[in-house]
């Protein structure tokens, strides 16, 4: 598959792994040297300065990264400048990783002799970690070593690419992924991953676990980039923001879960939440105004870099007689376009968006839980969290990703490494509920009078929308109905059932090949 990677791609991958290596070297240094203050340890007096960043390392790093950037900027005038810059930066990465690893190893000896470790008056951060609810104390020595080794490995991979080493994703791996991938496995896999993340959030919230996942993702993405088809779809200019959305949504979800886990553990012990530790008020000038200013400058730089690096798409002039295949809506509507597979346009394009907007507006009036205002938490509002996160992450983001990256010509599903073949044939043998009931179950012809023919579907729908809510209000949502009042609870349950209708219909399609529950032309559901 070497025809997939040209010298430009190899160079790009080399820099990709250089950055991955720098990230891991920084992580090793962070574990080895940094005083962690993120969890409020500083406010609680739990974050002493345990290890010192070696004084010589800073100037050396500046002396290596600085010229590297300089040479990179002037590469047009310096022959071989890019390679030289790469070498300098790689050297800096390796130096940082090895120093951090060595220092952490040295710290293990100090610790074994009882030197710097905590005492009653000055507990160390490692003692703060279990108190924060994140499991046992971490072994800093071990983890600093792990990340420094990973940094060196990534740097080695990067150097391999720099010298045009043919390191590509093996074809059996691509074939395996493509053969397993499908709308069913992708959606169900994402939903299961979501449920597991929420359920095992205490494990996920651990920074080391999370960083391990980040490293695996970096490796998987890097290897995938060696595939031409994957690269084509990911680097389409309008798709780049979605890659950003995935990273940001995952990152912020992790941050929120982590703070939620810590806050929940603190509340269980009767401690104030992190957000309540800092009671001080500060003047907006300078504290707030400067944050805003710095954010604006940073974003301006980021936007200018993005605009210069990536040209906005401009295709052939519009031709109303020549439809592209696939014709896709703007990316933020692709979740809805994906719903067209399962619903008719009047539901996917009008009904579902209206319900989403109404449902979002209704949230503050339906959530009567007074807990969890003004701080991150998961345990004190489990149902609200699970519902909203499922809606946003799975039904919105995951379906956008599916619609953008994995739906090709004729809206057929294509694996991440599969060529978009416009002639791909996918057998369609979907049946209506009326077929299943009258022909398969009862073994007779379908009645010709539509209301009778669709009676099973109409009855099912009526049960789902009119009989199920009262039942749920008396059973599963009894406590909620008592607290919120019947009217409020009824609205909440109906909205919830409408939301659940999406994955339910999808599952009926996958299991029974069900096309329509009610098949009355113009009113298909």
């Amino acid at each position, binding site marked *: 598959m070497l025809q997939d990677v040209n010298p430009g791609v190899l160079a790009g991958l080399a820099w990709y792994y250089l950055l991955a290596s720098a990230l891991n070297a920084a992580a090793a240094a962070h574990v080895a040297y940094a005083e962690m203050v993120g969890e409020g340890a500083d406010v609680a007096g739990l974050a002493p300065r345990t290890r010192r960043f070696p004084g010589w390392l800073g100037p050396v790093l500046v002396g290596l990264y600085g010229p590297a950037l300089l040479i990179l900027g002037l590469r047009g005038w310096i022959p071989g400048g890019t390679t030289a810059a790469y070498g300098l930066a790689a050297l800096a990465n390796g130096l940082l990783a090895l120093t951090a690893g060595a220092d952490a190893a040295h710290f293990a000896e100090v610790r074994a002799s009882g030197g710097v470790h905590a005492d009653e008056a000055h507990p160390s951060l490692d003692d703060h970690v279990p108190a924060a609810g994140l499991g046992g104390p971490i072994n800093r020595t071990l983890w600093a070593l792990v990340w420094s080794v990973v940094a060196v490995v990534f740097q080695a991979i990067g150097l391999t690419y720099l010298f045009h080493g043919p390191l590509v994703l093996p074809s059996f791996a691509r074939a395996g992924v493509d053969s397993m991938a499908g709308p069913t496995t992708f959606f169900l896999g994402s939903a299961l991953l979501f449920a597991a993340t929420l359920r095992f959030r205490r494990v996920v919230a651990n920074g080391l676990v999370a960083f391990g996942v980040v490293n695996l993702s970096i490796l998987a993405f890097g290897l995938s980039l060696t595939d031409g088809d994957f690269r084509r779809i990911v680097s389409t200019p309008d798709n780049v*923001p979605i890659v*950003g*959305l995935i990273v940001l949504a995952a990152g*912020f979800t992790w941050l*929120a879960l982590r703070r939620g886990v810590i806050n929940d553990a603190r509340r269980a012990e009767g401690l*104030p939440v992190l*957000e*309540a530790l*800092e*009671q*001080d*008020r*500060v*003047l*907006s*000038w*300078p*504290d*707030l*105004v400067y*944050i805003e200013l710095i954010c604006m400058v940073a*974003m*301006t730089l980021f*936007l200018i870099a*993005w*605009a210069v690096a990536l040209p*906005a*798409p*401009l295709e*052939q*002039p*519009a031709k*109303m007689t020549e439809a*592209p295949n696939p*014709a*896709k809506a*703007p*990316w*933020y*509507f692709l979740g*809805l376009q994906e719903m067209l597979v399962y619903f008719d346009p*009047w539901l*996917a394009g*009008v*009904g579902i968006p209206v319900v989403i*907007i109404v449902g*979002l*507006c209704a*949230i*503050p009036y339906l*959530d009567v*839980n007074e807990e*969890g*205002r*003004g*701080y*991150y938490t998961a345990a004190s*509002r489990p149902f609200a969290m699970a519902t*909203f996160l499922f809606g946003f992450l799975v039904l919105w983001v995951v379906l956008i990703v599916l619609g953008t990256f994995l739906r090709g010509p004729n809206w057929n599903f294509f694996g991440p490494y599969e060529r978009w073949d416009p002639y791909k044939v996918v057998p369609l043998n979907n049946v209506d509920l009326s077929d299943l009931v009258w022909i398969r179950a009862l073994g007779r012809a379908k009645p010709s009078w539509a209301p009778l023919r669709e009676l099973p579907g109409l009855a099912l729908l009526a049960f789902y929308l009119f009989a199920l809510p009262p039942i749920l209000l008396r059973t599963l949502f009894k406590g909620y109905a008592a607290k919120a009042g019947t009217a409020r609870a009824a609205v909440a349950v109906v909205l919830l059932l409408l939301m659940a209708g999406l994955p339910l219909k999808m599952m009926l399609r996958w299991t029974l090949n069900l096309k329509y529950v009610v098949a009355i032309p113009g*009113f298909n559901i």
Partner: protein
Amino acid sequence: MPIRDRIARTQLWKSVFRHPMPTDRRNRVQVMLSNFFLHLHPVSVQKQGIALSYTWCMGGATFFLFLVEVVTGVLLMFYYRPTLEHAYNDVLALRDVATLGVLRELHRWSAHAMVIAVMLHMYRVFLTGSYKPPREFNWVIGVMLLVLTLLLSFTGYLLPWDQLAVWAITVGSNMARATPVLGLEGPGANLLTLGDGVKLITPASDAKYVLLGGRSVGEAALNRFYVLHCVAIPLAASLLIMVHFWRVRKDGGISGPL
């Protein structure tokens, strides 16, 4: 006397800023009260409320991106003509020959970033339970602003008038045809029929026609989307943004634990 103080004593400076540099407490309060742009903020804030780990800065980022869109959008309007004859060529020229054609890239990427930022802002507000009383209605205004942001991006998508634009809008606007009762192919399209079979919902009067100003994406649609994109929706969004910010203050500032 240092030059800075000298400047601060000139009539020009005083006429603009009304008070000395905000270097001491008194003047730091003054600056927030007397400056039009700063008076959006309270004089003092909860320290934890403005922490980046709490707010993710996504609301502010959304507003900043909106401002970037306004500035770059106005500049692009000097160049771009929304007609079938010129639209595509103007965008082509922005790419190939126009000085500062990179403004189009800035505009487009900031638009994508704004959609992402507004989603993440809503996500954060949910995760911190900040929509709970007394901030319920500001959440509703926020939902409206989310919808307006999507519509802004959607209407702008058509303007380059290339294959990508026209067919994305075709896919999107085909949905309008399926609107219940008001769309030609929606359920209940025949409900609006006058006694002797005069249909009110026809290909020239249904919801899609209203959206596009024609039966398909054409010159009228381009004009309609241009006006919506450059005038109508930005005005509506500006109004709601003002209400949104005002209510953040009136509802007690950035949320925090009780």
